[in-house]
């Protein structure tokens, strides 16, 4: 690799980065480069050794590493360049990157298009403000997952897990498989935050108790975690006096949410959405900065990897067209506004003239669980444009509403459309 100029540069090689690199290359650009800070391509999929990936796009139930391998093989076959063990230090609005690594040293790269595919980070103890001492033995679930599944270390013998997110539940099973005892999973909300399948196959199968509306009141231990004090909470997350319980353990794992990782996006002046913490994007996954695109969990936290791959394909194609001068930021845009019971919608805006032939899928999350049949409705002013019936709506599962080209024509000239989720 001699050139410091590339048509499309992708930052991150998880499922969003791999798919966008493949799509960019297939859409006719000459040089595509993936920059990855780890030693190998694949991202967090490599430590997600459990099954459940690929059911939507491959119609197969694959482990994370197998799902990643298919895309890694395709990246290699297409001759896409990669820089591993390489950290991007800076990204500017004119698409100049500075980076450093042991093998390449300090480098500057100019790209015609950039795709942000940095994924997310886990919320830590500091972000959920857990009281108590600060001993060893408090880790995020994903960190423990990396140790157990990739590096071959067990972080403890007796665990309590805070948060009923999927990674936490999957780790409860994994630790049980490796001989540890998982005493309890605590969830502050009155409902499960991960998927029902994981509750059944990771907790119920191994008699691991799940306590809803419970949290950690205090971490106990000097050098090492010795116990946690748990407490029940009311509907306003306030501790209920007298419900405290001391659970002896040596490790507390946190599975308390993910935050899109956008330090580089901020440097480049990419506008972020206050609810998703990810870039504001159009239907091409184009950010507000011309030539900078974003795909995957860096935009918003997805429920299934399959949809991350789909988003990567869209972003990669869009970035390739931009690099070839065939596509720019949209002229006319319509804002998608989150109405009743909708927390957020991606894309945040779109150009209806670009969807004369293709459907426009809107992806959203409901703001509270509705265990009754619902309509997902698109409204232009007070006029109903289209709607979709669902048997229920839960915050843990993304909801998609496809707008068809003839629906979109009805929006022409409007500034905003509203999406709402209401009981049928």
């Amino acid at each position, binding site marked *: 690799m001699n050139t410091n100029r590339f048509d499309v540069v992708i930052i991150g090689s998880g499922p969003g980065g791999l798919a966008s690199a493949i799509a960019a290359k297939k859409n006719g650009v000459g040089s595509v480069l993936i920059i990855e800070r780890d030693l190998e391509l694949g991202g967090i999929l490599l430590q997600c050794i459990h099954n459940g990936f690929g059911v939507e796009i491959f119609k197969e139930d694959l482990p994370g590493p*197998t799902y990643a391998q298919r895309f890694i093989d395709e990246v290699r076959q297409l001759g896409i360049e990669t820089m591993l063990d390489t950290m991007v230090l800076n990204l500017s609005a004119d698409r100049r990157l500075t980076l450093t690594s042991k093998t390449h040293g300090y480098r500057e790269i100019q790209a015609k298009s950039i795709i942000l595919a940095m994924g997310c980070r886990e919320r830590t103890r500091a972000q959920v403000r857990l009281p108590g001492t600060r001993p060893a033995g408090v880790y995020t679930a994903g960190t423990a997952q990396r140790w*157990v599944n990739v590096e071959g270390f067990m972080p403890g013998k007796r665990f309590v897990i805070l948060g009923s997110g999927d990674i936490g539940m999957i780790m409860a099973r994994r630790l049980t498989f490796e001989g540890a005892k998982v005493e309890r999973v605590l969830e502050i909300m009155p409902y499960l935050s991960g998927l029902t399948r994981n509750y059944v196959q990771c907790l119920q199968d191994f008699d691991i108790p799940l306590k809803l509306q419970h949290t950690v009141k205090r971490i106990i231990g000097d050098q090492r975690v010795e116990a946690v004090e748990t407490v029940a909470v009311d509907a306003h997350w306030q501790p209920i006096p007298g419900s405290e319980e001391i659970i002896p353990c040596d490790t507390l794992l946190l599975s308390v949410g993910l935050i899109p990782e956008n330090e580089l996006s901020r440097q480049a002046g990419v506008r972020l959405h206050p609810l998703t913490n990810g870039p504001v994007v159009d239907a091409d996954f184009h950010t507000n900065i011309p030539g900078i695109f974003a795909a995957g969990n860096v935009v918003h936290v997805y429920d299934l990897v399959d949809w991350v791959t789909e988003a990567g394909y869209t972003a990669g194609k869009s970035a390739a067209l931009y690099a070839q001068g065939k596509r720019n930021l949209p002229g006319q845009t319509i804002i998608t506004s989150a109405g009743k019971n909708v927390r957020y919608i991606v894309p945040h805006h779109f150009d209806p003239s670009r969807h004369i032939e293709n459907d426009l899928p809107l992806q959203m999350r409901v703001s509270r669980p509705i265990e009754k049949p619902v309509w997902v409705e698109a409204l232009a002013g007070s006029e109903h444009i289209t709607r979709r019936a669902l048997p229920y709506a839960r915050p843990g599962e993304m909801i998609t509403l496809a707008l068809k080209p003839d629906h979109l024509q009805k929006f022409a000239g409007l500034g905003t459309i509203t999406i709402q989720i209401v009981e049928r």
Partner: protein
Amino acid sequence: MERNKLEQPMEIICVACPKGCRLEARRKNGEILVSHAGCKRGKQYAIGEITDPRRMVASTVRIQGGLHPLIPVYTSEPFPKDQIFQLLDQIRTTRIQSPVKAGDIVIKDALGTGIDVVASRDMA
């Protein structure tokens, strides 16, 4: 297994789809009766859970000469649930040598079930 007696109704959360219906299954005159199933797949799921519960099993095996000390592996098909810990014991004592390709068989015909344990990824 005690599930085969099943005089008392048993609650099963269906995972055939994400909805998660709470099914109730009971045995009557040798037949399994399933109630509260939202669809046909739910009934099939409940019968499977009672007569022959199986799960996909994923774990890791020690590898020598690889990029990492472990390589992820999984069962080629869902594995009998009551033999999972026996399988894990075998997986834990298995040692392999790099290089390995995704899909390579790591343990053939595990515990005589006809199910293989295969590598989840390439590792040089």
